[in-house]
């Protein structure tokens, strides 16, 4: 990494009232421009990490990209201010590692990104100053995993914590949605350029995140996500946050790698337990057995950092369920979670009435496969 006189550069930036310097932008552009080359050379995550830690000249050589200046072409000649204006036109902004706003956590990485591109309101950069928690997990999550991710995302956001995730299918999206429901304190770290939401079917989610939170990427706008850029993105997620929570993970899930990264960086790792005979809980249960913190709910996360719980605003939280509702609820919790089963267990009148009431009160929801899911409501005992 080119040794720029850090302090000097920082002062220079501050004096110009800018957040990004041309050298860092150049570096970011270089990496993005070499994306295809990196893709063909990088065979493992470690290799990617090694590559990204090289300085410009070495990097180009390592990926056989030809000549550094050639790769950058016209971009090298632009002034940082005009580059910034270009970004502004696209509704984006960037900060570089010399800026005060650069997340401290990222500085720990040996291959830290030179610049970060953002989409969203600039004022919301202060979200990065608050406690950041990353929520990751299986893409093919079960309704249970999705519900837990959503609930923790919502709970953390309500408590003033920033929820960081990757906007992928499954747990990521659920966590973002939970946070958005609770006011929007969420950051999506993308594997492509910040203007390239992936997966494409999450476009609406992406737009909501940009509206209420922030989307961020280390790659220049217009860069398509590649295989190598996903684990690269995961390292950023691990480094951003004080804790990475894995909600559901099979034995070989990518989220386990993110958890490992977090540990290497000295961050906390939390995991949500699951049924022992569920393949989606193999990874998370193993993490717990290996020493990760057992996470049941928002409180478990907040306790780790001694954050104040938000006052129990909703009086319905302490709502008492009547016998009938309680019986049906425990049936659903124990797996009897379709209407036919409940009617068979408790009779039609009871089942139908109780299900309607429980759904309205928020204790259960409908899953996309038609089953009922126990939400997180009312589960935390008074602490």
């Amino acid at each position, binding site marked *: 990494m080119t040794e720029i006189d850090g302090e000097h550069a920082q002062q220079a930036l501050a004096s110009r009232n800018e957040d990004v310097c041309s050298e860092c932008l150049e570096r970011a552009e270089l990496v993005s421009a070499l994306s295809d080359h990196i893709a063909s050379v990088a065979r493992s995550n470690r290799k990617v990490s090694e590559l990204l830690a090289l300085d410009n000249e070495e990097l180009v050589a390592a990926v056989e990209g030809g000549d550094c200046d050639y790769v950058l072409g016209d971009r090298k000649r632009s002034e940082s201010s005009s580059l910034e204006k270009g970004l502004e036109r696209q509704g984006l902004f960037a900060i570089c590692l010399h800026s005060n706003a650069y997340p401290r956590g990222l500085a720990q990485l040996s291959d830290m990104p030179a610049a970060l591109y953002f989409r969203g309101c600039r004022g919301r950069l202060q979200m990065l100053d608050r406690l950041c928690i990353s929520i990751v997990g299986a893409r093919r999550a079960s309704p249970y995993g999705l519900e837990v991710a959503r609930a923790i995302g919502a709970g953390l956001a309500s408590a003033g914590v920033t929820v960081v995730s990757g906007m992928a299918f499954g747990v990521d999206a659920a966590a973002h949605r939970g946070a958005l429901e609770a006011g929007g304190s969420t950051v999506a770290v993308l594997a492509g350029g910040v203007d390239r939401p992936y997966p494409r079917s999450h476009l609406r989610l992406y737009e909501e995140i940009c509206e209420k939170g922030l989307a961020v990427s280390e790659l220049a706008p217009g860069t398509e996500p590649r295989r190598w850029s996903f684990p690269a993105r995961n390292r950023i997620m691990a480094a951003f946050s004080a804790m990475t929570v894995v909600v559901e993970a099979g034995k070989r899930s990518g989220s386990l790698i993110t958890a490992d990264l977090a540990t290497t960086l000295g961050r906390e790792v939390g995991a949500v337990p699951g049924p022992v005979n569920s393949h989606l809980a193999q990874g998370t249960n193993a993490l717990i057995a290996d020493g990760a913190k057992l996470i049941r709910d928002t409180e478990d996360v907040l306790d780790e950092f001694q954050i104040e719980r938000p006052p129990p605003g909703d009086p319905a939280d302490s709502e008492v369920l009547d016998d009938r509702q309680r019986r049906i609820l425990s049936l659903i919790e124990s797996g009897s979670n379709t209407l036919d089963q409940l*009617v068979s267990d408790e009779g039609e009148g009871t089942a139908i009435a109780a299900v309607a009431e429980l759904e309205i009160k928020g204790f259960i929801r409908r*899953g996309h496969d038609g089953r009922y899911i126990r939400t997180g409501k009312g589960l935390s005992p008074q602490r």
Partner: protein
Amino acid sequence: MLASIRTYALAGVEAREVTVEVDIQLGLPAFNIVGLPDAALRESRERVRSALKNSGFEFPLKRITVNLAPADLHKAGPSFDLAVACAILVASEQVNGEGLTGYAVCGELALDGGVRPVNGTLVFAAGAREAAMENLIVPLENVEEALLVDGVKLIGLKRLEQIKSVADGSMNTIGRHRRRRQKPPPTGVDLADVRGHAGAKRALELTAAGGHNLLMIGPPGSGKTMLARRLPGIMPPLRHEEAVEATRIHSVAGALNGSSLIERRPFRAPHHSISPVALVGGGNPVRPGEISMAHNGVLFLDELAEFSRMPLEALRQPLEDGHITVMRASGSFTFPARFTMVAATNPCPCGFAGDRKAPCACTPAALNRYRLRMSGPLLDRIDIMLRIDRPRLEELHGESRPEVSGTVLERVIEARERQVARLSGDGIGCNAQMGSMLVRRHCRLSKGAEKLLVQAEGALTLGGRGYVRILRLARTAADLRSSETIEVEDMAAAVTYRHARSDEAAA
């Protein structure tokens, strides 16, 4: 010599009057048919020529011109054969033209002079009655069908040569058909065959009584198809006007094979490989599709996700309007298509999402695609959604005495009669057809029911549509209890059974 005979053409499920004019002049022998005939009609010439000759008549070796008026209406099909032959016979003075005035004629000819049945005779008879044309000559095999229309005197011909007897007055018309309204024959399957599925059976009852569209989600082999097939056995019989309409449609499709009005509500289950035209209607000649055959009945879409996008898209207009309009160069035809839609689907491509024993093997992208396919305007029209699973052991053996279809049917009939009485002034026949205005007018809520509804509105994302949907369902649930007021238990049933789309599918 000039002669003309009246006949009818099919336009959708209506009859249009056509006049067959024949002019025979001296000149080189020729036989031309003009007036926008289609291919089948053009082939008429060969059939008419052979039939005439083989019936002992002479085929005039002159210049014969046949005109089918009006000239700008496209005519299709072989049902004009008989009329053309008759007109030729009259024009060539082989048969007494006066004896045939006041008769409309329809039928196809066989080469040997026999008269073949055609589609749509019922519709022709209705058209004849409307045109105050009292007498209709039809193929003998179509007489039963045509007799379903009152006020038209019929003559059924088996052979072309019989037309002589008609013309000289020696053949009698057939009088009114004495028909009794028969109870429809048993369907062969009964609700009591189904063990377990208590919640699902109630959903079927709601669907049968109120006409609500139903979606069943479940893994393969869970019983969705079995349940759907029990629906016809608990559906209320058709009212007279509905029966007439259904019979008309079946007549046009050539699907009438009984001598009486269709009594049982149609139940159509097209295979998922069906083409859009076969599903909604069209083709050449324009024929009614499955949705029209299902008019006032049930359209069962098994394996909903396997249907290709086009036929499903084609369902949108009829689901909205209750009819389908097919446009052709020859004009536009409207077929009635107001049906109850019942759909069954797997929760995901491999079928096992949500199953604890078998892990879902689908990739997230495939899952997402599948769910996106499932959302949309089609699902918006579904009132009831239910998860169906194979019953557990205790459910299979637990039920003491499951209700038979007959018992359920009684409740359903009573509930439907209440609806008909209540809604007769509004032009609809069941609760599922109520829009927001009617729902407000007809749904009287108890205090408890109203409280639950307000809570539901606040807690669940209902939207305007969801709100109307819940009230409709509650109205049916109350009707099934013979209650005019909607009580809290009805509202609870509506909330529980409603079709709720989880937000995972939406974004």
